């Protein structure tokens, strides 16, 4: 009897040691699972079923049904994303999420979102912390960092530093979209005039050009430029501004020292106030090309 009890004691000790090491292993695995970027948060509905199927927790599930359910879910999500992209005018290419801290009360994630809004390519990185309190939760962005890759980035510089400081992510995207819409207006207008008056109007550079040139074929040294800039204020207000610039040989200026040419920009601005932007531009073009009103170049 004595002997048996000693044997038992040894066995108990061995088992206890085994349990301890197993517990440590389980804890380590759980930690690894938590560290994994794809956390269980993603697995809801069919994806959760699929996860359980893959982990062999649900041997009774038929694979074929699962696959068709997943395909269906994927299609629905794709449709949603298409709609969201169209509505927001912003294409998102990727998001990476890294959980920095996670407990039942708060969650801190490092998020990086990349995408583009027409040809403005952006990359935004920020920390998102979520604190749950009783019945509501507060989400807060900290440490925001924006990288903008485009020709127009200098227009944004003041706004960008302000928005990074105020961490106003939605404001950044609203401004980006409005800016891109205004750029669209500009290139459409330039294209329209180029099509309507091909011998007079030229737009140097790509469709994002800020300048449209007017040049009468018979007077090559005389040129007018529309300089159409789109400014972004520190607050995020987007406002277009058009200037009319002239390039006239000195000899010609000596012959006509009168005001009109010198004050071209001011004159254009008053015209713009009366007629609106496009009509004002058109009347200038007609004046340069010596076209009568309501006639395009082809008809003249």
């Amino acid at each position: 009897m004595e002997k048996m009890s000693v044997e038992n004691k040894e066995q108990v000790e061995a088992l206890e040691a085994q349990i301890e090491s197993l517990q440590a292993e389980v804890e380590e695995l759980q930690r690894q699972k938590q560290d994994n970027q794809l956390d269980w948060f993603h697995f809801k509905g069919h994806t959760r079923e699929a996860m359980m199927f893959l982990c062999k927790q649900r041997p009774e599930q038929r694979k074929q049904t699962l696959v068709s359910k997943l395909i269906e879910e994927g299609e629905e999500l794709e449709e949603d994303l298409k709609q969201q992209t169209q509505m927001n005018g912003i294409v998102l290419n990727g998001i990476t999420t890294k959980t920095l801290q996670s407990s039942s009360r708060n969650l801190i994630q490092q998020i990086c979102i990349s995408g583009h809004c027409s040809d403005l390519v952006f990359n935004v990185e920020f920390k998102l912390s979520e604190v749950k309190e009783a019945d509501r939760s507060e989400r807060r962005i900290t440490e925001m960092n924006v990288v903008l890759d485009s020709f127009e980035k200098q227009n944004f510089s003041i706004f960008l530093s302000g928005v990074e400081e105020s961490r106003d992510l939605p404001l950044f995207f609203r401004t980006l979209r409005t800016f891109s819409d205004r750029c669209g207006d500009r290139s459409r207008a330039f294209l329209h005039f180029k099509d309507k008056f091909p011998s007079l109007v030229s737009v140097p550079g790509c469709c994002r050009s800020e300048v449209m040139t007017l040049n009468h074929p018979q007077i090559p040294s005389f040129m007018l430029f529309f300089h159409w800039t789109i400014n972004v204020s520190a607050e995020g207000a987007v406002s277009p501004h058009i200037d009319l610039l002239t390039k006239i040989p000195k000899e010609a200026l000596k012959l006509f020292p009168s005001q009109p040419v010198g004050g071209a920009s001011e004159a254009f601005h008053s015209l713009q106030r009366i007629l609106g932007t496009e009509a004002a531009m058109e009347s200038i073009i007609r004046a340069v090309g010596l076209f009568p009103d309501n006639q395009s170049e082809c008809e003249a």
Partner: protein
Amino acid sequence: MERASTKGVLGHLSLLETQMRSCRGKHQQLNRTEQLKAKVEALCVQKEQLKVELHTLQRLQKVRSTLDGNGADDEMDDDSENADILQLMAKCARLKDLLHAHHLIGGYDVVKTRQDKGLCITLTTAYEGIYLDTYHLEMDLSPKLRISRHDIPPFIPLNSLVETTTQTALRPFLDFLSQHLNAFTGRKQQLKLVKEQHKSVEVMESNVLCSVLVLLVRVPERKLPVLCILDYTDHSRSLPTGVKFECDDEPPNFEQWKKSCRILLERPVHKALITMKSLGCIV
């Protein structure tokens, strides 16, 4: 035994008791080993399960990063068991993440209702990195664009706005609405922060739209009270369009107040007050 026979019945009973006790002890010991063995078994099962889960997660992660375009391409020909399911799962997870990202950047959450005849739109507002209230719109798309239900504050002229909106140009309408709502929540949040952060400043007056704010501040000299009136005429902005100071006594230091005016026009009011304090304009 001998002692038992000598001590009679009582002795016998006590002997039986000791025997019982040792027997129970042995039994208990056996029970304990059984328990421990069961625990070891349970832990082994848990460990295996976790290993499988972790392995699956890692495989999923690999497929996912290939989808995102930053994984190595040679990982793609993973024809192992259930690779198709992994592919589908990674695709779903990626799409869900992108939808979540749209939400985070303040995008308009749109849900089609009634066989595409209606729309539900959610507008998010945020101020200085904190997500604030959300507002909702329910719209009929056909036969005519119409807002059927909403919780937008009444001072935003929704209906006249909708009349100028067409089905294809919903975005300018939503942009306008979002700008106004964000400006409004921004002003509201600033007022809240002034009350929280500036105990020495008294809020004398404000309205529901938060378009007027009257503050009572005190100048360092003799703690004279000065009324500071902020006017937010442009409802699409969260910064004031006009600042006025009113004082019963002699007019205060003109240069200094001009500077204060500029600060209040350029910065959110709770921050402007901090700057004014540090410059010694107010206490």
